[in-house]
Protein backbone atom coordinates (compact mmCIF):
# COMPACT_ATOMS: atom_id res chain seq x y z
CA UNK A 1 0.00 0.00 0.00
CA UNK A 2 1.16 3.51 -0.74
CA UNK A 3 2.04 4.96 2.66
CA UNK A 4 1.52 8.52 1.50
CA UNK A 5 -2.17 7.93 1.02
CA UNK A 6 -4.66 9.47 3.36
CA UNK A 7 -7.68 7.26 3.13
CA UNK A 8 -11.02 8.77 3.96
CA UNK A 9 -14.37 6.97 3.97
CA UNK A 10 -17.34 8.91 2.64
CA UNK A 11 -20.79 7.56 3.48
CA UNK A 12 -24.04 8.96 2.11
CA UNK A 13 -27.44 7.92 3.46
CA UNK A 14 -30.87 9.22 2.51
CA UNK A 15 -34.09 8.81 0.57
CA UNK A 16 -33.42 7.58 -2.98
CA UNK A 17 -33.71 10.41 -5.52
CA UNK A 18 -32.13 11.04 -8.94
CA UNK A 19 -28.84 12.96 -8.89
CA UNK A 20 -27.41 11.96 -5.51
CA UNK A 21 -24.40 10.11 -6.89
CA UNK A 22 -23.79 12.83 -9.49
CA UNK A 23 -23.89 15.66 -6.94
CA UNK A 24 -21.68 13.90 -4.43
CA UNK A 25 -19.03 12.80 -6.93
CA UNK A 26 -18.91 16.28 -8.50
CA UNK A 27 -18.02 17.83 -5.13
CA UNK A 28 -15.43 15.12 -4.55
CA UNK A 29 -13.86 15.73 -7.98
CA UNK A 30 -13.90 19.52 -7.51
CA UNK A 31 -11.89 19.01 -4.31
CA UNK A 32 -9.36 16.82 -6.17
CA UNK A 33 -10.11 13.90 -3.89
CA UNK A 34 -9.57 10.56 -5.65
CA UNK A 35 -12.27 7.88 -5.45
CA UNK A 36 -10.66 4.43 -5.13
CA UNK A 37 -13.63 2.19 -4.44
CA UNK A 38 -17.40 2.51 -4.40
CA UNK A 39 -20.15 0.40 -2.85
CA UNK A 40 -23.76 1.40 -3.27
CA UNK A 41 -27.05 -0.22 -2.32
CA UNK A 42 -30.71 0.62 -2.14
CA UNK A 43 -31.96 -0.78 1.15
CA UNK A 44 -35.77 -0.44 1.48
CA UNK A 45 -35.81 2.87 -0.45
CA UNK A 46 -32.80 4.07 1.57
CA UNK A 47 -29.94 5.16 -0.62
CA UNK A 48 -26.67 3.97 0.93
CA UNK A 49 -23.35 4.86 -0.67
CA UNK A 50 -19.86 4.31 0.62
CA UNK A 51 -16.68 5.45 -1.06
CA UNK A 52 -13.07 4.83 -0.16
CA UNK A 53 -11.11 7.88 -1.23
CA UNK A 54 -7.55 9.16 -1.13
CA UNK A 55 -7.44 12.63 0.36
CA UNK A 56 -3.68 13.20 0.04
CA UNK A 57 -3.85 15.36 -3.10
CA UNK A 58 -6.92 17.36 -2.06
CA UNK A 59 -7.00 21.08 -2.89
CA UNK A 60 -8.51 22.02 0.48
CA UNK A 61 -8.25 21.20 4.19
CA UNK A 62 -10.11 18.23 5.67
CA UNK A 63 -12.50 20.59 7.45
CA UNK A 64 -13.16 22.61 4.29
CA UNK A 65 -13.86 19.37 2.41
CA UNK A 66 -16.32 18.35 5.11
CA UNK A 67 -18.03 21.72 4.79
CA UNK A 68 -18.25 21.47 0.99
CA UNK A 69 -19.68 17.96 1.19
CA UNK A 70 -22.13 18.99 3.90
CA UNK A 71 -23.39 21.85 1.73
CA UNK A 72 -23.96 19.46 -1.17
CA UNK A 73 -25.64 16.91 1.11
CA UNK A 74 -28.01 19.60 2.42
CA UNK A 75 -28.88 20.50 -1.17
CA UNK A 76 -29.55 16.83 -2.00
CA UNK A 77 -31.35 16.30 1.32
CA UNK A 78 -29.16 13.36 2.32
CA UNK A 79 -26.79 12.74 5.23
CA UNK A 80 -23.07 12.59 4.61
CA UNK A 81 -20.30 11.32 6.87
CA UNK A 82 -16.63 11.99 6.14
CA UNK A 83 -14.34 9.97 8.40
CA UNK A 84 -10.73 8.91 8.39
CA UNK A 85 -10.55 5.18 7.64
CA UNK A 86 -8.70 4.42 10.91
CA UNK A 87 -11.94 4.58 12.89
CA UNK A 88 -13.34 1.67 10.86
CA UNK A 89 -10.05 -0.21 10.82
CA UNK A 90 -9.80 -0.03 14.60
CA UNK A 91 -13.37 -1.20 15.14
CA UNK A 92 -13.72 -3.89 12.51
CA UNK A 93 -10.23 -5.29 11.82
CA UNK A 94 -7.85 -7.05 14.17
Amino acid at each position, binding site marked *: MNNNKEQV*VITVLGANNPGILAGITRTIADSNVNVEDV*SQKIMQDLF*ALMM*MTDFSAANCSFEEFQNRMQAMADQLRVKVF*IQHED*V*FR*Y*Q*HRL
Partner: protein
Amino acid sequence: MLFSLEEVIETISAVGVETFDIRTVSCGINILSCADSDVNKCAEKVYEKVVRVGRDLVPTARILEKKYGIPIVNKRISVTPVSMLANAFTEPTAVPIAIALDNAAKELGIDYIAGFGALVHKGFTRGDQILINSIPDALCSTDRVCSSVNIGSSQSGINMDGVYRMAEVVKEAAERSRDKNGLACAKLVVFCNAVEDNPFIAGSFLGAGEAEAIINVGISGPGVVRAALERAGNLSFGELSELIKKVSFKITRTGELIGREASRMMGIPFGIIDLSLAPTPAAGDSISDILELMGLERTGCHGTTAALAMLNDAVKKGGMMAATYAGGLSGAFIPVTEDAGMCRAIEDGALNIQKLEAMTCVCSVGLDMVAIPGDTSVDVIAGIIADEAAIGMINHKTTACRLIPVPGMKAGDVVDFGGLLGKGPVMEVGRHSPAVFVRRGGRIPAPVHSMKN
Protein backbone atom coordinates in the same frame (compact mmCIF):
# COMPACT_ATOMS: atom_id res chain seq x y z
CA MET B 1 -13.27 -2.68 -0.54
CA LEU B 2 -11.58 -2.58 2.87
CA PHE B 3 -14.86 -2.45 4.79
CA SER B 4 -18.37 -3.58 3.99
CA LEU B 5 -21.23 -1.13 3.80
CA GLU B 6 -22.78 -2.89 6.81
CA GLU B 7 -19.66 -2.34 8.92
CA VAL B 8 -19.51 1.32 8.03
CA ILE B 9 -23.20 1.83 8.79
CA GLU B 10 -22.77 0.01 12.12
CA THR B 11 -20.08 2.50 13.15
CA ILE B 12 -22.09 5.50 11.99
CA SER B 13 -25.30 4.41 13.68
CA ALA B 14 -23.46 3.74 16.96
CA VAL B 15 -22.83 7.49 17.09
CA GLY B 16 -25.96 8.81 15.42
CA VAL B 17 -28.60 6.52 16.90
CA GLU B 18 -27.05 4.73 19.88
CA THR B 19 -25.37 7.76 21.50
CA PHE B 20 -21.84 6.35 21.42
CA ASP B 21 -19.18 8.87 22.26
CA ILE B 22 -15.80 9.23 23.88
CA ARG B 23 -16.81 10.46 27.30
CA THR B 24 -13.55 12.18 28.08
CA VAL B 25 -10.04 12.85 26.98
CA SER B 26 -8.25 13.80 30.18
CA CYS B 27 -4.82 15.30 30.49
CA GLY B 28 -3.00 14.71 33.76
CA ILE B 29 -0.53 17.43 34.73
CA ASN B 30 2.03 17.25 37.53
CA ILE B 31 1.98 20.51 39.51
CA LEU B 32 4.56 19.66 42.19
CA SER B 33 7.02 22.00 40.46
CA CYS B 34 4.69 24.87 41.48
CA ALA B 35 5.46 24.48 45.21
CA ASP B 36 5.75 27.70 47.18
CA SER B 37 5.20 28.65 50.81
CA ASP B 38 3.09 31.60 49.63
CA VAL B 39 -0.26 30.19 48.50
CA ASN B 40 -0.87 33.07 46.11
CA LYS B 41 2.50 32.67 44.40
CA CYS B 42 1.84 28.94 44.19
CA ALA B 43 -1.56 29.66 42.61
CA GLU B 44 0.08 31.85 39.95
CA LYS B 45 2.54 29.07 39.10
CA VAL B 46 -0.25 26.46 38.97
CA TYR B 47 -2.28 28.63 36.60
CA GLU B 48 0.73 29.19 34.34
CA LYS B 49 1.68 25.53 34.20
CA VAL B 50 -1.81 24.14 33.62
CA VAL B 51 -2.48 26.65 30.83
CA ARG B 52 0.91 25.97 29.24
CA VAL B 53 0.76 22.16 29.31
CA GLY B 54 -2.97 21.85 28.60
CA ARG B 55 -3.18 24.46 25.84
CA ASP B 56 -3.56 21.98 22.97
CA LEU B 57 -6.12 19.68 24.62
CA VAL B 58 -9.36 21.28 23.39
CA PRO B 59 -8.11 22.08 19.85
CA THR B 60 -6.75 18.51 19.54
CA ALA B 61 -10.04 16.98 20.66
CA ARG B 62 -11.93 19.13 18.13
CA ILE B 63 -9.69 17.98 15.28
CA LEU B 64 -10.12 14.32 16.28
CA GLU B 65 -13.90 14.67 16.50
CA LYS B 66 -13.96 15.94 12.92
CA LYS B 67 -11.43 13.43 11.63
CA TYR B 68 -13.16 10.35 12.98
CA GLY B 69 -16.75 11.51 13.31
CA ILE B 70 -16.88 10.49 17.00
CA PRO B 71 -17.97 13.10 19.57
CA ILE B 72 -15.62 13.74 22.49
CA VAL B 73 -18.02 14.97 25.14
CA ASN B 74 -15.63 16.22 27.81
CA LYS B 75 -12.14 17.62 27.80
CA ARG B 76 -10.68 17.47 31.29
CA ILE B 77 -7.52 18.09 33.24
CA SER B 78 -6.38 16.41 36.43
CA VAL B 79 -3.51 17.54 38.62
CA THR B 80 -1.40 16.17 41.45
CA PRO B 81 -3.37 16.14 44.74
CA VAL B 82 -3.22 19.75 45.88
CA SER B 83 -2.72 18.70 49.53
CA MET B 84 0.88 17.87 48.64
CA LEU B 85 1.49 21.50 47.74
CA ALA B 86 -0.53 22.70 50.73
CA ASN B 87 2.02 21.21 53.13
CA ALA B 88 4.30 24.16 52.37
CA PHE B 89 1.71 26.93 52.73
CA THR B 90 2.29 29.44 55.50
CA GLU B 91 -1.35 30.49 55.44
CA PRO B 92 -3.77 27.63 56.26
CA THR B 93 -5.87 27.83 53.07
CA ALA B 94 -5.76 26.19 49.65
CA VAL B 95 -8.73 28.09 48.17
CA PRO B 96 -6.53 30.32 45.92
CA ILE B 97 -5.27 27.14 44.21
CA ALA B 98 -8.85 26.06 43.45
CA ILE B 99 -9.56 29.49 41.98
CA ALA B 100 -6.39 29.30 39.87
CA LEU B 101 -7.43 25.85 38.59
CA ASP B 102 -10.91 27.14 37.78
CA ASN B 103 -9.50 30.11 35.89
CA ALA B 104 -7.13 27.85 33.97
CA ALA B 105 -10.01 25.54 33.02
CA LYS B 106 -12.04 28.49 31.76
CA GLU B 107 -9.09 29.90 29.83
CA LEU B 108 -8.56 26.54 28.11
CA GLY B 109 -12.24 25.70 27.55
CA ILE B 110 -11.90 22.62 29.78
CA ASP B 111 -15.15 21.17 31.19
CA TYR B 112 -13.82 20.05 34.56
CA ILE B 113 -10.49 20.19 36.35
CA ALA B 114 -9.83 17.76 39.17
CA GLY B 115 -7.23 16.97 41.76
CA PHE B 116 -8.17 19.42 44.49
CA GLY B 117 -7.80 16.53 46.88
CA ALA B 118 -5.90 14.58 49.47
CA LEU B 119 -4.87 11.00 50.29
CA VAL B 120 -5.49 10.38 53.99
CA HIS B 121 -6.09 6.62 54.11
CA LYS B 122 -3.58 6.23 56.91
CA GLY B 123 -3.40 9.69 58.42
CA PHE B 124 -3.44 13.44 57.91
CA THR B 125 -0.51 15.70 57.10
CA ARG B 126 -0.78 19.41 57.76
CA GLY B 127 -1.33 19.87 54.02
CA ASP B 128 -4.16 17.34 54.02
CA GLN B 129 -5.88 19.23 56.82
CA ILE B 130 -5.49 22.58 55.06
CA LEU B 131 -6.88 21.07 51.87
CA ILE B 132 -9.85 19.33 53.48
CA ASN B 133 -10.78 22.44 55.49
CA SER B 134 -10.72 24.41 52.22
CA ILE B 135 -13.02 22.07 50.25
CA PRO B 136 -16.46 23.63 50.93
CA ASP B 137 -15.20 27.14 50.23
CA ALA B 138 -13.23 25.97 47.17
CA LEU B 139 -16.19 24.14 45.61
CA CYS B 140 -18.53 27.05 46.24
CA SER B 141 -16.11 29.66 44.84
CA THR B 142 -15.46 27.77 41.59
CA ASP B 143 -17.49 26.24 38.76
CA ARG B 144 -15.31 23.53 37.25
CA VAL B 145 -13.07 22.33 40.08
CA CYS B 146 -13.61 18.81 41.45
CA SER B 147 -12.34 17.38 44.69
CA SER B 148 -11.66 13.88 45.97
CA VAL B 149 -10.30 12.50 49.21
CA ASN B 150 -9.11 8.93 49.74
CA ILE B 151 -9.94 7.69 53.24
CA GLY B 152 -9.17 3.98 53.02
CA SER B 153 -7.28 1.24 51.23
CA SER B 154 -6.95 -2.54 51.27
CA GLN B 155 -3.34 -2.13 52.39
CA SER B 156 -3.88 0.30 55.24
CA GLY B 157 -7.49 -0.03 56.38
CA ILE B 158 -9.96 2.80 56.82
CA ASN B 159 -9.07 6.11 58.45
CA MET B 160 -12.33 6.61 60.37
CA ASP B 161 -11.26 10.10 61.47
CA GLY B 162 -11.02 10.86 57.76
CA VAL B 163 -14.44 9.32 57.16
CA TYR B 164 -16.05 11.43 59.85
CA ARG B 165 -14.27 14.61 58.76
CA MET B 166 -15.40 14.03 55.15
CA ALA B 167 -19.00 13.47 56.30
CA GLU B 168 -18.79 16.91 57.94
CA VAL B 169 -17.32 18.37 54.75
CA VAL B 170 -20.10 16.84 52.60
CA LYS B 171 -22.71 18.31 54.89
CA GLU B 172 -21.03 21.72 54.94
CA ALA B 173 -20.55 21.77 51.14
CA ALA B 174 -24.25 20.99 50.69
CA GLU B 175 -25.32 23.77 53.05
CA ARG B 176 -22.93 26.26 51.46
CA SER B 177 -24.46 25.52 48.03
CA ARG B 178 -28.05 25.46 49.31
CA ASP B 179 -29.19 27.82 46.53
CA LYS B 180 -28.08 25.21 43.95
CA ASN B 181 -29.53 22.14 45.72
CA GLY B 182 -26.18 21.20 47.23
CA LEU B 183 -24.44 21.12 43.84
CA ALA B 184 -20.99 21.46 45.44
CA CYS B 185 -21.34 17.83 46.62
CA ALA B 186 -21.69 16.65 43.01
CA LYS B 187 -18.06 17.74 42.60
CA LEU B 188 -16.78 15.89 45.70
CA VAL B 189 -15.90 12.19 45.96
CA VAL B 190 -14.80 10.22 49.02
CA PHE B 191 -12.77 7.18 47.94
CA CYS B 192 -11.45 3.89 49.21
CA ASN B 193 -8.63 2.50 47.02
CA ALA B 194 -8.56 5.58 44.76
CA VAL B 195 -6.69 4.97 41.50
CA GLU B 196 -3.97 7.29 40.22
CA ASP B 197 -4.96 7.36 36.55
CA ASN B 198 -8.75 7.74 36.57
CA PRO B 199 -9.90 10.03 33.74
CA PHE B 200 -13.44 10.35 35.12
CA ILE B 201 -14.81 13.23 37.13
CA ALA B 202 -15.15 14.02 39.96
CA GLY B 203 -12.55 11.60 41.32
CA SER B 204 -9.75 12.21 38.85
CA PHE B 205 -6.26 13.18 39.99
CA LEU B 206 -2.70 12.57 38.80
CA GLY B 207 -1.12 10.12 41.20
CA ALA B 208 2.33 10.44 42.70
CA GLY B 209 3.64 7.56 40.57
CA GLU B 210 2.54 9.11 37.27
CA ALA B 211 4.59 10.91 34.61
CA GLU B 212 4.99 14.68 34.22
CA ALA B 213 1.94 14.73 31.96
CA ILE B 214 -0.30 12.00 30.57
CA ILE B 215 -3.33 11.47 28.32
CA ASN B 216 -6.07 9.17 29.63
CA VAL B 217 -9.30 8.30 27.82
CA GLY B 218 -12.72 7.37 29.17
CA ILE B 219 -15.22 5.72 26.84
CA SER B 220 -19.00 5.75 27.05
CA GLY B 221 -21.37 3.47 25.19
CA PRO B 222 -24.25 1.99 27.23
CA GLY B 223 -26.53 2.87 24.31
CA VAL B 224 -24.48 0.72 21.92
CA VAL B 225 -24.62 -2.28 24.28
CA ARG B 226 -28.36 -1.76 24.74
CA ALA B 227 -28.97 -1.62 20.97
CA ALA B 228 -26.97 -4.84 20.44
CA LEU B 229 -28.99 -6.62 23.14
CA GLU B 230 -32.25 -5.36 21.62
CA ARG B 231 -31.31 -6.78 18.23
CA ALA B 232 -30.09 -10.07 19.68
CA GLY B 233 -33.28 -11.27 21.40
CA ASN B 234 -33.22 -14.41 23.48
CA LEU B 235 -29.67 -15.54 24.32
CA SER B 236 -28.13 -17.87 26.88
CA PHE B 237 -25.70 -16.37 29.41
CA GLY B 238 -22.68 -17.49 27.42
CA GLU B 239 -24.03 -15.92 24.23
CA LEU B 240 -25.01 -12.75 26.07
CA SER B 241 -21.53 -12.42 27.49
CA GLU B 242 -19.98 -12.94 24.04
CA LEU B 243 -22.18 -10.24 22.52
CA ILE B 244 -21.30 -7.70 25.22
CA LYS B 245 -17.60 -8.53 24.84
CA LYS B 246 -17.72 -7.83 21.10
CA VAL B 247 -19.48 -4.50 21.54
CA SER B 248 -17.09 -3.53 24.32
CA PHE B 249 -14.14 -4.41 22.09
CA LYS B 250 -15.34 -2.09 19.35
CA ILE B 251 -16.06 0.90 21.54
CA THR B 252 -12.79 0.47 23.41
CA ARG B 253 -10.85 0.27 20.14
CA THR B 254 -12.26 3.66 19.22
CA GLY B 255 -11.03 5.01 22.56
CA GLU B 256 -7.62 3.49 21.85
CA LEU B 257 -7.46 5.27 18.49
CA ILE B 258 -8.47 8.61 20.00
CA GLY B 259 -6.00 8.22 22.87
CA ARG B 260 -3.08 7.33 20.61
CA GLU B 261 -3.80 10.18 18.23
CA ALA B 262 -4.34 12.75 20.99
CA SER B 263 -1.07 11.62 22.56
CA ARG B 264 0.82 11.91 19.27
CA MET B 265 -0.61 15.32 18.41
CA MET B 266 0.00 16.81 21.86
CA GLY B 267 3.40 15.17 22.40
CA ILE B 268 2.22 13.82 25.77
CA PRO B 269 2.45 10.07 26.58
CA PHE B 270 -0.72 7.97 26.35
CA GLY B 271 -1.59 6.58 29.77
CA ILE B 272 -4.66 4.37 29.86
CA ILE B 273 -8.14 3.70 28.60
CA ASP B 274 -10.73 3.42 31.31
CA LEU B 275 -13.04 0.55 30.34
CA SER B 276 -16.04 1.89 32.21
CA LEU B 277 -19.47 2.02 30.62
CA ALA B 278 -20.56 5.53 31.57
CA PRO B 279 -24.24 6.46 31.26
CA THR B 280 -25.68 9.91 30.58
CA PRO B 281 -29.16 11.26 31.33
CA ALA B 282 -29.95 11.02 27.57
CA ALA B 283 -32.75 8.58 26.71
CA GLY B 284 -31.37 5.09 26.11
CA ASP B 285 -27.85 5.83 27.36
CA SER B 286 -28.48 3.93 30.57
CA ILE B 287 -26.85 1.04 32.44
CA SER B 288 -30.22 0.34 34.04
CA ASP B 289 -31.80 -0.13 30.60
CA ILE B 290 -29.19 -2.81 29.81
CA LEU B 291 -29.93 -4.67 33.05
CA GLU B 292 -33.65 -4.57 32.32
CA LEU B 293 -33.06 -5.81 28.76
CA MET B 294 -31.19 -8.75 30.27
CA GLY B 295 -34.54 -9.73 31.77
CA LEU B 296 -35.13 -7.82 34.99
CA GLU B 297 -38.57 -6.25 35.34
CA ARG B 298 -36.94 -3.27 37.04
CA THR B 299 -33.35 -2.59 38.11
CA GLY B 300 -33.15 -3.30 41.82
CA CYS B 301 -35.22 -6.48 41.79
CA HIS B 302 -33.60 -9.72 42.96
CA GLY B 303 -31.09 -10.81 40.32
CA THR B 304 -29.82 -7.28 39.68
CA THR B 305 -26.46 -7.84 41.38
CA ALA B 306 -25.84 -10.97 39.28
CA ALA B 307 -26.83 -9.22 36.05
CA LEU B 308 -24.57 -6.27 36.84
CA ALA B 309 -21.67 -8.57 37.76
CA MET B 310 -21.94 -10.32 34.42
CA LEU B 311 -22.25 -7.07 32.44
CA ASN B 312 -19.27 -5.53 34.19
CA ASP B 313 -17.10 -8.59 33.67
CA ALA B 314 -17.99 -8.95 29.99
CA VAL B 315 -17.28 -5.25 29.34
CA LYS B 316 -13.83 -5.68 30.88
CA LYS B 317 -13.05 -8.89 28.98
CA GLY B 318 -13.95 -7.28 25.66
CA GLY B 319 -12.20 -4.03 26.47
CA MET B 320 -8.96 -5.60 27.71
CA MET B 321 -8.11 -7.01 24.31
CA ALA B 322 -8.89 -3.72 22.60
CA ALA B 323 -6.72 -1.58 24.85
CA THR B 324 -2.94 -1.54 25.03
CA TYR B 325 -3.12 -0.18 28.56
CA ALA B 326 -6.36 -0.54 30.51
CA GLY B 327 -6.60 1.32 33.78
CA GLY B 328 -8.52 3.90 35.74
CA LEU B 329 -11.70 2.63 37.31
CA SER B 330 -12.70 0.22 34.50
CA GLY B 331 -16.18 -1.01 35.40
CA ALA B 332 -19.80 -0.13 34.71
CA PHE B 333 -20.79 3.12 36.43
CA ILE B 334 -24.13 3.31 38.18
CA PRO B 335 -24.52 6.97 39.08
CA VAL B 336 -28.12 7.57 40.03
CA THR B 337 -29.13 11.02 38.83
CA GLU B 338 -27.00 10.65 35.67
CA ASP B 339 -28.94 7.54 34.57
CA ALA B 340 -32.63 8.00 33.76
CA GLY B 341 -33.28 4.24 34.09
CA MET B 342 -31.88 4.17 37.62
CA CYS B 343 -34.11 7.09 38.58
CA ARG B 344 -37.18 5.31 37.17
CA ALA B 345 -36.31 2.18 39.17
CA ILE B 346 -36.19 4.25 42.38
CA GLU B 347 -39.45 6.02 41.56
CA ASP B 348 -41.10 2.63 40.93
CA GLY B 349 -39.96 1.43 44.35
CA ALA B 350 -37.71 -1.29 42.88
CA LEU B 351 -34.36 0.17 43.87
CA ASN B 352 -33.35 1.41 47.33
CA ILE B 353 -30.02 2.49 48.80
CA GLN B 354 -29.43 -0.94 50.38
CA LYS B 355 -29.69 -2.70 47.01
CA LEU B 356 -27.59 0.01 45.41
CA GLU B 357 -24.90 -0.68 48.00
CA ALA B 358 -24.99 -4.39 47.14
CA MET B 359 -24.63 -3.55 43.45
CA THR B 360 -21.49 -1.53 44.19
CA CYS B 361 -19.80 -4.74 45.35
CA VAL B 362 -19.59 -5.96 41.76
CA CYS B 363 -18.99 -2.84 39.67
CA SER B 364 -17.55 0.64 39.60
CA VAL B 365 -17.59 2.63 41.63
CA GLY B 366 -19.87 3.16 44.57
CA LEU B 367 -22.78 5.25 45.74
CA ASP B 368 -22.41 7.78 42.97
CA MET B 369 -24.59 10.87 42.53
CA VAL B 370 -26.98 9.72 45.22
CA ALA B 371 -29.24 12.51 46.49
CA ILE B 372 -30.23 11.97 50.13
CA PRO B 373 -32.51 13.99 52.44
CA GLY B 374 -31.09 17.34 53.49
CA ASP B 375 -31.60 16.60 57.18
CA THR B 376 -29.43 13.44 57.07
CA SER B 377 -27.02 13.70 60.02
CA VAL B 378 -23.23 13.74 59.77
CA ASP B 379 -23.23 10.44 61.70
CA VAL B 380 -25.43 8.71 59.10
CA ILE B 381 -23.36 10.12 56.20
CA ALA B 382 -20.21 8.85 57.94
CA GLY B 383 -21.88 5.45 58.31
CA ILE B 384 -22.71 5.32 54.61
CA ILE B 385 -19.15 6.29 53.65
CA ALA B 386 -17.68 3.73 56.07
CA ASP B 387 -19.85 0.91 54.66
CA GLU B 388 -18.88 1.72 51.11
CA ALA B 389 -15.20 1.98 52.06
CA ALA B 390 -15.41 -1.39 53.82
CA ILE B 391 -16.70 -3.01 50.61
CA GLY B 392 -13.74 -1.58 48.71
CA MET B 393 -11.20 -2.45 51.39
CA ILE B 394 -12.25 -6.10 51.73
CA ASN B 395 -12.80 -6.71 48.00
CA HIS B 396 -9.64 -4.96 46.76
CA LYS B 397 -11.60 -2.61 44.54
CA THR B 398 -12.23 1.08 44.29
CA THR B 399 -15.39 2.28 45.99
CA ALA B 400 -16.57 5.80 46.50
CA CYS B 401 -19.36 8.00 47.74
CA ARG B 402 -20.66 11.04 45.93
CA LEU B 403 -23.57 11.87 48.20
CA ILE B 404 -25.65 15.03 47.97
CA PRO B 405 -27.68 15.80 51.10
CA VAL B 406 -30.03 18.18 49.27
CA PRO B 407 -30.87 21.08 51.63
CA GLY B 408 -34.58 21.34 52.35
CA MET B 409 -35.51 18.19 50.43
CA LYS B 410 -36.87 14.90 51.74
CA ALA B 411 -37.04 11.37 50.33
CA GLY B 412 -39.10 11.20 47.13
CA ASP B 413 -38.55 14.85 46.13
CA VAL B 414 -36.96 15.31 42.71
CA VAL B 415 -33.75 17.31 42.41
CA ASP B 416 -32.32 18.67 39.16
CA PHE B 417 -28.56 19.34 38.95
CA GLY B 418 -28.60 20.13 35.23
CA GLY B 419 -26.58 18.84 32.27
CA LEU B 420 -24.66 15.57 32.56
CA LEU B 421 -25.27 15.51 36.33
CA GLY B 422 -28.95 14.89 35.57
CA LYS B 423 -31.98 14.87 37.82
CA GLY B 424 -33.54 12.26 40.02
CA PRO B 425 -35.34 11.37 43.22
CA VAL B 426 -33.95 11.93 46.71
CA MET B 427 -33.34 8.46 48.21
CA GLU B 428 -34.42 7.37 51.67
CA VAL B 429 -31.59 6.50 54.07
CA GLY B 430 -31.65 4.51 57.29
CA ARG B 431 -32.81 6.57 60.27
CA HIS B 432 -31.13 4.65 63.09
CA SER B 433 -27.92 6.20 64.32
CA PRO B 434 -24.38 4.78 63.94
CA ALA B 435 -23.10 7.74 66.01
CA VAL B 436 -21.22 5.79 68.69
CA PHE B 437 -19.53 3.57 66.10
CA VAL B 438 -18.44 6.25 63.63
CA ARG B 439 -17.09 8.55 66.39
CA ARG B 440 -14.79 6.01 68.03
CA GLY B 441 -11.75 7.60 66.44
CA GLY B 442 -8.69 6.04 64.83
CA ARG B 443 -8.46 3.52 62.03
CA ILE B 444 -10.17 0.29 61.11
CA PRO B 445 -7.12 -2.01 60.77
CA ALA B 446 -6.12 -3.38 57.38
CA PRO B 447 -7.81 -6.70 56.59
CA VAL B 448 -6.15 -10.08 56.17
CA HIS B 449 -5.24 -10.82 52.59
CA SER B 450 -5.67 -14.55 52.79
CA MET B 451 -8.54 -16.76 54.02
CA LYS B 452 -10.90 -14.94 51.64
CA ASN B 453 -14.28 -16.40 52.54
